[in-house]
């Protein structure tokens, strides 16, 4: 198992380089001029300003030259400077990634717990009304567009009933706690600010529910199929023949096995959400990397776009690695393999 992990870690830099190269080239061949967002459309006629800006932002030189410079800097931990925020991309990402991760972790919790519960209900009561209902609930989350769901949720819970706060991570009048981890829930607790913690939690509920529901469908589907397969196994009949109760058979015996094939989809979903939370972040004014990516794309901010892509790629690679490790933890047969 350790060998597998090491091998994966060794391959990772090369995969990342591939991702970087592809993104860099795509950005170069995009029609559009990033100078517009740097110096403004009016100054494009002024050759002096254009030349100065090009030199300042490293846009002179040929594509291979710029690529070499970028990779060289990247190898030294420098992701470049954002055309738009004029800050190092690494700083931007460090500020925004925790917000996304906080949202994604909560959304994963909603999606995984909800999806697994729905899957158990629908597998146990296969072809019954409960099964159809559970699958419908799961399917709706996948079908309904998140931006629509987000707006409806805001309308219902914020505007109409005023049960939950609107967009953002904290009340606009609140003073944010000093940034330690960047995770609002953690930072408010570290600052000992209980009311801010509750506020942050209340702000998280709607976006996490909307985002979590959107991935519930695929999780339910996978776990249900895997549960149905497991429930037909001899060891399930054996567990029942031992006199175990239905719930014990379902959770202790069936789910422990059914989750193994579902781990892949859980890891994949998590990685997907890191960059896939764009729409929800936009609707809920969530200062994460999703909204950062949208802003970067609008202004052809290459360094920022590539930076977000690297984070997304890294997310996938790490999620894959974690999935492998989780496999070994869940399945004793995997531990000796590889």
């Amino acid at each position: 198992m350790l060998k597998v992990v090491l091998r994966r870690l060794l391959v990772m830099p090369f995969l990342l380089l591939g991702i970087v190269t592809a993104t860099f080239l795509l950005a170069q061949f995009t029609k559009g001029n990033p100078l517009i967002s740097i110096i403004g459309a009016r100054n494009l006629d002024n050759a002096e300003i254009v030349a100065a800006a090009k030199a300042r932002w490293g846009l002179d030189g040929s594509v291979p030259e710029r690529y070499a410079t970028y990779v060289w800097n990247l190898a030294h931990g420098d992701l470049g400077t954002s055309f738009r925020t004029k800050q190092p991309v690494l700083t931007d990402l460090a500020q925004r990634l925790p917000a996304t991760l906080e949202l994604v972790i909560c959304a994963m919790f909603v999606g995984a717990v909800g999806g697994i519960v729905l899957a158990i209900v629908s597998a146990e009561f296969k072809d019954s009304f409960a099964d159809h209902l559970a699958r419908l609930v799961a399917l709706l989350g996948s079908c309904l567009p998140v931006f629509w769901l987000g707006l409806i949720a805001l309308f219902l819970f914020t505007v109409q009933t005023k049960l939950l706060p609107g967009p953002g991570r904290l009340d606009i009048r609140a003073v944010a706690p000093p940034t330690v981890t960047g995770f609002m829930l953690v930072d408010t607790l570290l600052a000992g600010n209980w009311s801010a913690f509750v506020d942050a939690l209340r702000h998280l509920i709607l976006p996490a529910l909307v985002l979590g529901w959107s991935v519930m469908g695929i999780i339910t589907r996978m776990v249900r199929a895997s549960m149905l397969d497991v429930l037909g196994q001899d060891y399930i009949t054996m567990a029942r023949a031992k006199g175990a109760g239905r719930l014990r058979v379902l959770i202790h015996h069936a789910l422990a096995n059914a989750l193994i094939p579902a781990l892949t989809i859980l890891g994949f979903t998590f990685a997907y959400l890191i960059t896939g939370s764009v729409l929800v972040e936009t609707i809920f004014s969530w200062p994460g990397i999703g909204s950062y990516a949208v802003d970067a794309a609008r202004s052809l901010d290459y360094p920022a776009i590539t930076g977000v892509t690297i984070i997304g790629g890294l997310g996938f690679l790490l999620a894959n690695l974690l999935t492998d490790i989780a496999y070994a933890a869940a399945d004793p047969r995997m531990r000796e393999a590889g």
Partner: protein
Amino acid sequence: MSLPLLDIRGLAVTIPTRDGEQAAVSNVDFTIDRGEVVGLVGESGSGKSLSMLAVMGLLPRHLHVSGSIRFDGVEICGAPERQMRSLRGRRIAMVFQDPMTALNPVKTIGAQISEMIRLHNPKLGRAEVKERALALLESVAIPAPERRFDQYPHEFSGGMRQRVVIAIAIANDPELLIADEPTTALDVTIQAQIMEIFARLRAERGMAVVLITHDLGLVAGLADRMSVLYAGRVAERGPVGPVFTAPRHPYTAGLLAAVPSIDDVAERLYAIPGTPPSLGARPPGCAFAPRCDFAVPLCRMSEPALLRFGSAVVACHRAEELSLGDLPRKEA
């Protein structure tokens, strides 16, 4: 006469299909006394396993079970799940056919044995449970039980797994053990060991064993009585001795003839021609008639009733006239 431990009367199991309800088991009677070993014999699909799963209350929900199943005098056919759960594993235990799939792959052997003990002895302490589990592993001849306790099923060979399955089944000293083809998946030496374990348990603990099998050698070696099922019905039932020496049902005789003998090596193995009727394709009259060498027109018209002949009960129109003691072994 004392009450039989298990008394099944008129058991029927029907399976809903597109063409309506089809009977997979019908009108099966079966009894077993304490300390007795009864063989339940028949080809695959003859309803042996279904009948016994019905006793355990473990059939899938969409199957319909009717008839009477009395265990120790108490009706348990259609009993509530709570009542069945207190019987399962405690008073009636089951050994499954395939040791490769009967154990949960993600739980340790120790955890799976302990679960059986703990489910029915909730007050037992952790150490006591482990002690009993280790003793059980020892009783089925698993070497180094301490080390084996924390291992997973994939670290065990097939024969060892089957012994673990047996250890689990006997953990709570059940009065009735249902062994569903307990040795089919094992090689002969392991088979003998397992049979030895059964014989010992029966002698030591007075456990009754239903031996579901299509291996007649096993029945001859261990069972007191046997029941032969064909297409979900009882074909012949009686003490092992008389049934083996003088079978009255052509199907029983065919099964006996199909047992390879060590004396005639050159001969091709005998097989009963044809296959059992599939569900829903049951012929009118005797279900065995299409494959039977002795069928007469009557056999294809009316279904034979179970009638007593000597010590056995047979469902064959020609049981009285046929003498199948030394079956004409045919050149195939």
